[in-house]
C-alpha cells in the first residue's frame, strides 16, 4: 500500500462515519462537531488527490469561516433544548433528500467523466502549481459562472442587510 492509498481510505472512512454522525446525533452541538469533522476529512481527501489549494481553502472557508456561523447560532440553544427531536418533517425530508442525492450523484459522476479532458494534466499542474491552475480555469473558462455566483452572493448580502435594518428600526420606534 502506498501512503496516498492509506491516506485515502483513512480520510474517506472517517468522512463517511462523521457524515453519518452529522445526521444521527440528537445533540445539536455534536451534529456541528461531526460536520466540522466531515469537512476536515474531505479537505484531507483533496490533499491526497494533489489538489492542495482546494483542500486548504476547504479547510479555511468551510471548516472554519462558515461553520463558525453555525456554531454561533446553535450554541445559543441551551443544552436541554438541543436534544429535542421532531419526526413530523421526516415525511417531506426523505423524498427531497433523495432527489438532492440523485442530483449530486449525477453531477459527481459527470464531473469524473469530464475530468480528464482539460489541458491541466497532473504533470502540468505539478509544474505550474495549484494556484495558477485554479486561477487560470476560474478566470477563463468558468468566468461567467464565477461572476454569476458573485452576483448571487451580492444579492444575498443586500437582502441580509435590508432584513437586519428593518428590525433595528422597529426596535428604535418601540
Amino acid at each position, binding site marked *: 500500500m502506498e501512503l496516498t492509498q492509506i491516506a485515502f481510505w483513512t480520510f474517506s472512512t472517517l468522512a463517511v462515519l462523521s457524515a453519518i454522525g452529522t445526521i444521527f446525533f440528537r445533540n445539536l452541538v455534536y451534529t456541528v462537531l461531526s460536520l466540522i469533522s466531515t469537512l476536515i476529512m474531505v479537505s484531507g481527501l483533496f490533499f491526497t488527490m494533489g489538489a492542495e*489549494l482546494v483542500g486548504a481553502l476547504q479547510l479555511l472557508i468551510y471548516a472554519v469561516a462558515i461553520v463558525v456561523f453555525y456554531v454561533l447560532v446553535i450554541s445559543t440553544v441551551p443544552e436541554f433544548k438541543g436534544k429535542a427531536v421532531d419526526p413530523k418533517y421526516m415525511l417531506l425530508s426523505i423524498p427531497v433528500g433523495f432527489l438532492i442525492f440523485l442530483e449530486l450523484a449525477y453531477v459527481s459522476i459527470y464531473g469524473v467523466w469530464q475530468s480528464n479532458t482539460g489541458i491541466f494534466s497532473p504533470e502540468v499542474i505539478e509544474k505550474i502549481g495549484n494556484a495558477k491552475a485554479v486561477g487560470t480555469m476560474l478566470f477563463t473558462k468558468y468566468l461567467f459562472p464565477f461572476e454569476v455566483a458573485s452576483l448571487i452572493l451580492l444579492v444575498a448580502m443586500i437582502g441580509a442587510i435590508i432584513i437586519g435594518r428593518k428590525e433595528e428600526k422597529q426596535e428604535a420606534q418601540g
Partner: protein
Amino acid sequence: MEELILTSIAIGIKSVIFIIGMFLLAAYLTWIERKFAGHVQQRPGPLHVGWHGLLQPIADALKVLTKEDIVPSGVDKVLFYLASLLAFVPAIMILAVVPFGQPVNLFGFEIKPYITDLNVGLILALAFGSISIYGVIFAGWASNSKYPMIGGLRKAAVLIGYEVALGFAMVGPIMQAGTFSLKGIVEAQQGLWFIIPNILGFVVILFAILAETGRTPFDVQEAEAELVSGYNTEYSAMKFGLFPLAEWYIATFVLSAIAVILFFGGWNGPHIFGPISPFVWFFLKLAMMFMFFLWVHWTLPRYRVDQITELAWKVMLPLSLLNILVVAIWIMIFG
C-alpha cells in the same frame, strides 16, 4: 513500503522535536511574559524560584499538573474534555508549515528547520489557527454555565470579523511574492522587506493577531471584570492550563513568526553571525514581534464587544482592501 516507513519515522522524529521544543519554549514564554508584565507595572515579577525566577515555569508546570482536576457535574463531559484539546492541538499544528530558517549543512547532514514546505502553507497556517477557536467556543457551550457561554460566543463574533481582515491583509505579500509558500515569501524579500508597500496590511495584521489570540485590547472572551474568567471559568488543573498555553503563548508565538515572515524578511539579514546568522536574525525579529504584543497587552485597557466588531468591519476590512490596491499599484510601477 520501506521508503514509506523511513519517511514516516523521519517526519515523526522531526515533529516530536518541534513539539517538545515548542512546549519548553512556551513554558519559558510564560516566564518572559511575567517578567515583562512585572516591569511594565513597576514590580520585579517572579524572583524566588531560581535566579530571577528562572525555574518558575517548571514549578508552575508541576503545580498545574498535580492539582485536583475538577469536572463540574452539569457539564457535557465529552465536549468538556475535547474542547481543551481542540484549542491546543491545531495551535501546535501550525508549526508543521512554519519555516524557522534555511536548510543548513551540519556534520554532513542537510538539516531543514521546517517540517514541510507546502505550496499552500500560508492558507493552512491561517486555517489551523482558526480551528483552534472552536476549542474556546465549545468550552463555553460544554461548561453549561452563563459566563463561559457568553465568553465563547464573544470569541466567535470576534473571530468572524478579524478572520476576513486577516485573510485580505495577507494578500499583499502573496501578490508580491507570487506564492503561498512561506519559504518562497521569505526568498522573495532578499532585496526589500515587504513592510514597505504593505504598511497598511501590517497594521491590520497586528490587530488581527491580537484579536485571534485574545490578547488584551481584545480579550472580551475572558474579561475578568465582567465574566469571572470567561470561557474557562469551569476548568481546572491542566485542562485550564492548556487554554492560555495554546492561545497566549503558542498561537501568539507562531503568528508572530508568520508576521515576521510576511513583512520583515524572515531570516534575511547580513551574515555577521557566521553559519547560524539566519536563525539569529529570525529569532531576534520574532522576539521583537512577540515583545510588541506583550507590550500592547500589558499597557492598554479592553475594548467593548461592539467596538471590536465595528473596528473589524468598518476600519480593518477597508484598510486591508486599500492595502491590496496600494500593493497592486506598487507592482505596476516597480514590477
